[in-house]
């Protein structure tokens, strides 16, 4: 008797191995390393400047370091977003198109396990990349600037949740769409959320309800940018947040319910992807 099952982990394992030997990962690692080197150099110059100027107060120094660190984290966030879309964008559509999927799907594994296994494999790589970049930025800030932003323990999981949302869209889209269309959709949604979030910020600042509402609705359709704003607002001192004078000090931050919304969003999008894949002709 042949045993049935275990397909999920087998697929996750294969996906992980495949991702690790892809050129795109190498490119992402080189980009990440270059970015961290640049960030380290810039930070070093800034800290030297701040330390040498006796007129700089402790508060000013703290605000400057927080701004720079958040800017670094924002750039790292963009790299993670790129990675979340591009790494898995062709994993399903590509294998369906080439016919590789046929030999896989006739094996005694559930189609659900193919989608979930690929999701887990890519998520693991994305999370490792996230840890590398965010660990790098925070590590450099801590070593070079002797500064660590507040509440990173709540901020960082929010950023990881954002990456997970985008990764899930990229994988679920591949069950139905061709690779390029799928990539466009994922980036399009990300861009939409980005614009909508700014509309919401400006709407709130100017008291324009319509702009604010449009922003809120789009944030529900695509929670990525809201999650970043929540994370950014967490990872700065209360005073800076209250002043609201930096791109990382939003006027309007989503309520904590957004976390649950995003978690549910991931589950639903993944479930739709699984269902589409289960029904599709291979």
């Amino acid at each position, binding site marked *: 008797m042949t045993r049935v099952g275990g*397909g999920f982990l*087998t697929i996750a394992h*294969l996906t992980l191995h495949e991702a690790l030997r892809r050129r795109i990962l190498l490119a992402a690692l080189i980009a990440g390393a270059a970015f961290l080197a640049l960030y380290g150099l810039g930070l070093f110059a800034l800290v030297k400047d701040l330390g040498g100027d006796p007129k700089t107060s402790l508060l000013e120094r703290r605000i400057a370091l927080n701004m720079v660190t958040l800017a670094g984290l924002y750039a790292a966030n963009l790299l993670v977003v790129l990675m979340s879309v591009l790494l898995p964008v062709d994993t399903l559509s590509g294998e369906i198109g080439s016919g590789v999927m*046929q*030999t896989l799907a*006739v*094996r005694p594994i559930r189609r659900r396990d193919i989608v979930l296994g690929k999701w887990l494999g890519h998520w693991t790589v994305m999370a490792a990349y996230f840890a590398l970049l965010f660990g790098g930025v925070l590590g450099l800030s801590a070593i070079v600037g002797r500064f660590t932003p507040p509440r990173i323990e709540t901020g960082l999981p929010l950023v990881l949740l954002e990456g997970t949302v985008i990764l899930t869209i990229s994988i679920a889209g591949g069950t139905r769409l061709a690779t390029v269309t799928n990539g466009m959709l994922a980036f399009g949604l990300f861009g939409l959320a980005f614009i909508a979030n700014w509309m919401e910020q400006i709407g709130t600042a100017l008291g324009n309800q319509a702009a604010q509402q449009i922003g809120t609705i789009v944030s529900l359709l695509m929670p990525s940018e809201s999650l970043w704003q929540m994370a950014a607002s967490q990872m700065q001192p209360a005073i800076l947040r209250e002043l609201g004078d930096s791109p990382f000090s939003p006027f309007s931050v989503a309520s904590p319910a957004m976390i649950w919304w995003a978690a549910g969003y991931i589950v639903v999008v993944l479930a739709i992807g699984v269902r589409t894949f289960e029904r599709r002709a291979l």
Partner: protein
Amino acid sequence: MPEFVIEAHGLRKQFGAKTAVEDLSLTVRRGEVFGFLGPNGAGKSTTIKMLLGLVAPTWGSASVLGAPIGDRAVRARLGFLPEHFRFQDWLTGRELLQFHARLLGRSSREWASRIEALLARVDLIDAANRPVRTYSKGMMQRVGLAQALLGDPEIVFLDEPTSGLDPLGRLLVRDVMHELRDRGTTVFLNSHLLGEVEATCTRVAFVKAGRTVHEMSLADEDGKVEVVIRVGVLTDDVRAAVAQWGRIVDGAAAATVGPDGAPPLERLRVVVDDEGRVPEIARAIVGRGIPLYEMKVARKSLEEWFLDVMGDEGRPG
């Protein structure tokens, strides 16, 4: 009562406005090497995919090894080599087989000796540690065959397994099919290469525009035989007499030069339902005083069957 391992009733597959398979019914018995024949685009691949659960039929039903199509436990007992076989080509040949062993629920250690034996069978031991990406088309197809045979499947589905292969590659496929037949494994072969089917299959079904139009056993070809007759003179009277016993497929004045300068002989080809008609035809010719030089019973070739069943639409151009 033979055991049917595949039974399909009225399968239909519609992709949007396009009908890939119209109304397809067929049965395959255990141990048969079943040839599924038809021109390109007749719905052969879609039929295999439906039987394997890769494509859901729009209508109709089918069972494979006694379970509805797509059943997960049954899929462990099937092997499949798709038409355009592509694999995770960054894996080595050995890794690919180990991966498929795990998909079958076995650890690669558990099946190590089985994997080595298969690699040896398809002559890939030397290339087993090279990425599949570096393989030639023939090697790719061999590793594909090994993959299809990995779980000692009860039914092996091969979709145009020799397309684009050199003669050696074709020979290997043919040998493997003979081995499978000897072992009692059922083979479902999609092909439009009639020679390949004739050499290996025990039974064939012809598919045309998504319908099975004819099923026959290659063991007895439904008893039909073709008779080639050479006579001194071919009169209308003779033709009419012969036509009583069978269907004349080629009976014109295809004159050939007779032996030793004798008058040219005329040739007649007749298809009769069974061999018992042959003496009747001989009697009719001789009874009319016509010199009979030769009567040869010929098996009808698969190619002739194919053209017969498909009609002229089956011919390209």
